[in-house]
């Protein structure tokens, strides 16, 4: 009984320390390690040679390459944990590693590793001795003293209040659904208009999921990408913006010949401003290398500013817009000194609108969330993400399936939110039902 059976979950975590370093390692362990790893690698090798470093291009959810690194496959039992292990060696940027881990953790059958879990598995499978395991055990114990309950304390007050208020609304909905299912003679139709009620909870959960992400941004810094046709005046804006900043740290040509990066600090928020200069035509006709670079920059962006010159056609605009998916996008008319354009407009030459643009970008990045979410932010983010997808499925089910399916999905969402604050949702549910409904034949 000393082997992890093949039924055990595959786990993933960043194996290197939290600080940004030259190289960051993401480690997967478990039966799905290789399959999951392949899902974040562009054109992966079908069956990589064991214990051999293979070049790999890591991709984001849209398939865009975000980094180049190495992939090493250690088949069981000759690995750290004794299970199938895959290590992805990428550049040590925390946000990049976080992106890879959260992508991997959404593969069905894969989840984030618990504290000390790799070492525990290594010990269980006889890969390390007791002394090492117990050293880890003490570490884990010290960690658990603060405990999962402390995860709640790690959320800042404002955010945890928001989680609790969404949880209350979700619990009320779940209560009515389960009352209707469990007590049809006493609480029939208690659920009311389910789709409307789910929508009511969905909005704040969506906001919450976004804000935890933004909270993490405040810690690791944000990337703002300037994007648009070459004649839009991006460089002028970039220079005005970068030059204006007293806190200017660095402005030098980026790693690519034709992109500029500047490290800025806006009211305590670290911002990397990226100019994707050099795009001479509409995006459909760009040279291949240019597309890749721009897409890489866009993939890593936390916010994108699309700068369009006056007189651009709607069609043209739509093409540029279609390049940016799943990112907060701000459209700005440039050269406001030359033409009267509707909406947000700037003129880098005269300085008109630059300050308000900066303000808008900042709002876009932080959504008004001030403080960062610490250590377990990735875990919180993952749980909130699960809550969100469960609610989205609940909404679909409310139109196309049975009440029990809707209730099940709402229950999964409620449990996921409960994980964030460390609450026992099952007891709460029964308490709430008996509190609200007079049950009893």
């Amino acid at each position: 009984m000393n082997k992890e059976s093949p039924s055990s979950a595959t786990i993933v975590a960043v194996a290197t320390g939290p600080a940004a370093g030259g190289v960051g390692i993401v480690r997967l362990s478990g039966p799905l390690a290789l399959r999951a790893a392949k899902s974040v690698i562009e054109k992966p090798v079908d069956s990589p040679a064991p214990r051999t470093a293979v070049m790999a291009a890591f991709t984001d959810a849209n398939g865009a390459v975000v980094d180049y690194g190495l992939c090493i496959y250690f088949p069981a039992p000759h690995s750290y944990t004794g299970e199938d292990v895959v290590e992805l060696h990428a550049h040590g940027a925390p946000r990049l590693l976080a992106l890879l881990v959260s992508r991997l953790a959404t593969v069905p059958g894969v989840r984030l590793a618990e504290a000390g879990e790799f070492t525990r598995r290594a010990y269980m499978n006889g890969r390390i001795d007791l002394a090492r395991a117990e050293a880890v055990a003490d570490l884990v114990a010290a960690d658990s003293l603060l405990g999962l309950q402390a995860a709640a304390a790690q959320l800042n007050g404002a955010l945890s209040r928001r989680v609790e208020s969404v949880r209350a609304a979700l619990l009320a909905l779940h209560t009515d659904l389960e009352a209707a299912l469990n007590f049809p003679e006493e609480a029939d139709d208690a659920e009311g208009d389910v789709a409307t009620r789910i929508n009511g909870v969905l909005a704040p959960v969506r906001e919450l999921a976004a804000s935890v992400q933004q909270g993490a941004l405040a810690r690791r810094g944000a990337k703002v990408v300037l994007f648009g046709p070459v004649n839009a005046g991006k460089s002028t804006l970039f220079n005005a913006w970068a030059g204006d900043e007293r806190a200017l740290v660095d402005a030098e040509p980026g790693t690519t010949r034709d992109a500029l990066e500047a490290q800025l600090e806006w009211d305590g928020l670290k911002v990397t401003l990226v100019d994707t200069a050099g795009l001479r035509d509409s995006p459909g006709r760009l040279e291949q290398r240019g597309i890749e670079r721009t897409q890489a920059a866009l993939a890593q962006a936390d916010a994108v500013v699309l700068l369009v010159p006056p007189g651009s056609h709607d069609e043209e605009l739509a093409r540029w817009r279609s390049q940016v998916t799943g990112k907060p996008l701000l459209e700005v008319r440039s050269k406001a000194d030359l033409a009267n354009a509707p909406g947000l407009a700037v003129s880098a030459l005269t300085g008109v609108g630059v300050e308000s643009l900066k303000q808008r970008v900042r709002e876009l990045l932080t959504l008004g969330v001030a403080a960062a979410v610490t250590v377990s932010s990735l875990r919180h983010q993952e749980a909130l993400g699960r809550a969100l997808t469960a609610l989205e499925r609940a909404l679909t089910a409310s139109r196309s399936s049975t009440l029990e399916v809707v209730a099940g999905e709402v229950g999964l969402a409620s449990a996921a939110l409960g994980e964030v604050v460390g609450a026992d949702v099952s007891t709460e549910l029964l308490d709430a039902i008996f509190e609200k409904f007079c049950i009893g034949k």
Partner: protein
Amino acid sequence: MSSLRCDVLIVGLGHAGCEAALAAARMGLNVIAVTLNRQRSAVMSCNPAIGGTAKGHLVKELDALGGQMARAADEAGTHFITLNLSKGPAVRATRVLCDRDAYAVVMQKQLDCTPGLSLVEGEVAALVTEGGRAVGARLADGREIVTPAVVVTTGTFLQALMHVGAQKEVGGRLGDAAATGLSGSLRELGFVLGRFKTGTPARLRKSSIDFSRCQKQPGDAHPRPFSRWTPLKGFPQKAPVDCYLTFTNEATHRILRDNLKFSPLYQGEIVGRGPRYCPSVEDKVVRFADKVRHTVFLEPEGPQSDLVYPAGLSTSLPAAAQLAFLRSIVGLEDVQVERFGYAVEYDYSPPTQLKPTLETQRVEGLYFAGQLNGTSGYEEAAVQGLLAGINAALKVKGAPPLVLGRHEAHAAVLVDDLVTKGVDEPFRMFTSRSEHRLKLREGNAAFRLSGHGFRVGLLDGPRWNQVVRERESVSAEVARLANVGLLSKLKRPEVTYAALAGEDAERPVLPVAVTDEVETEVKYAGYIAQAEEMASRHADAHEHWSIPHDIVWSSVRGLSAEVQERLQKSKPSTVAQAKRLPGMTPAAVSLLLIHLKRTVIEKV
């Protein structure tokens, strides 16, 4: 003094005891069942119905394993309904109103005609143990029974005390004595006992009720049997009855409030905690003061019976107050009361003292089942009785025990919640307690469990084959639909299996049970996969590891004192159970696993 011998001794013949006795005897063992009064075995002490949400699921599971309750309900049933018909196949539940007297007679007949089972009238006053093992029992009259296995199913009868207003009477049910000696014996063996209360309403004379002023609630027009083994020929056996609805009103509530001061509960006479889902009517009026009316379900106790059970009106107020509030209700203006309602307080044994087999941790060969374990309801009791009876029999035979997984039965969720988390009020089953609800349907109970019933020797070969064939025809039909390209169409929410008949020329003729299951399996596959993925996210390959009974929790390195204390108290017997304890973090589980692995190595 004479001494009797048997393989398995059953103490008490309520719903748990009957199932335990029948199961052990059907598994080929010599069984003695001791009861205070054999004429009162299998009596429905409270409402005359079997089933309902989650309870119907338990009975279907019991039936699939080879238990008796569903078959007895079919024979005595007078009003069959399916609840939650439109809310989904997993919460759909059967409820059968029975002819109260007929139910007990049917079950007693079964007890009488089962080979290997003998009934003994008497009171078990003490259990006899030797070196931590059960070896027999002593009756109050001095007789002794020698046995290696005892299943105690004493229900509400341990130190039972009934309350009607300020009047108190010793007894577990109106007209029946209490069991007074056994509590002391259990305490001497080191068991902790707690106190719960429950209640029941008055019984009304049918001839004194004006049903024309109430809402009629007929049963299903085409009732389906509860048990899959009940022959359709001659079903239903009993003439149907109709139920009726009426409501309390402001006058009722005023009378209840005025008489609260006479309630033993509000006077602090009752110390035991009662169930929140089955409050007395005076409790409802206090806790839900803004509700202008409460529903009363008038349930006739049989086609020939002149008694009606008013569900929803459980009370322990004095008789005069009961009569006054009853007569304020529409339809009951001239009601005559046959017996007044009462509350009963009784000893229960906190179920955290049990293993998942329902064997006690303290005494080998001793099993507890039913209301004694702090549960409520006939169905919860019966399914525990069945499992305890099966496990006692398996133990005597030297065979491995039957412990069902949470993913395969609501009955397993019930037992696991009991022995892992314990109870702080009488425990009733709800489908929402199961994280695998979509999979645990009444409709697939046999597919899930009949294999176990066959394996332990409770279900005969022909019945098991019938289940296997049905399972095969479900799978074959799903495969055929895939072949003819109709599977994805059936997955669509608005498309039913029946509606596809027109474009499905080669469709075979199949029983409704099969096509229902085909439709559900196809439509739910995605949702079930989703729910299972979530449920297994934190599943651990080591969940089945057993924890030695003599583990010293303080020696598990790194565990906090709080967690140690909790583990000490609930004595989980597997890693999976330990994991489900409140406050058990993944880190604590890691520490436990490392400790277990280490101690195993040291022992080798």
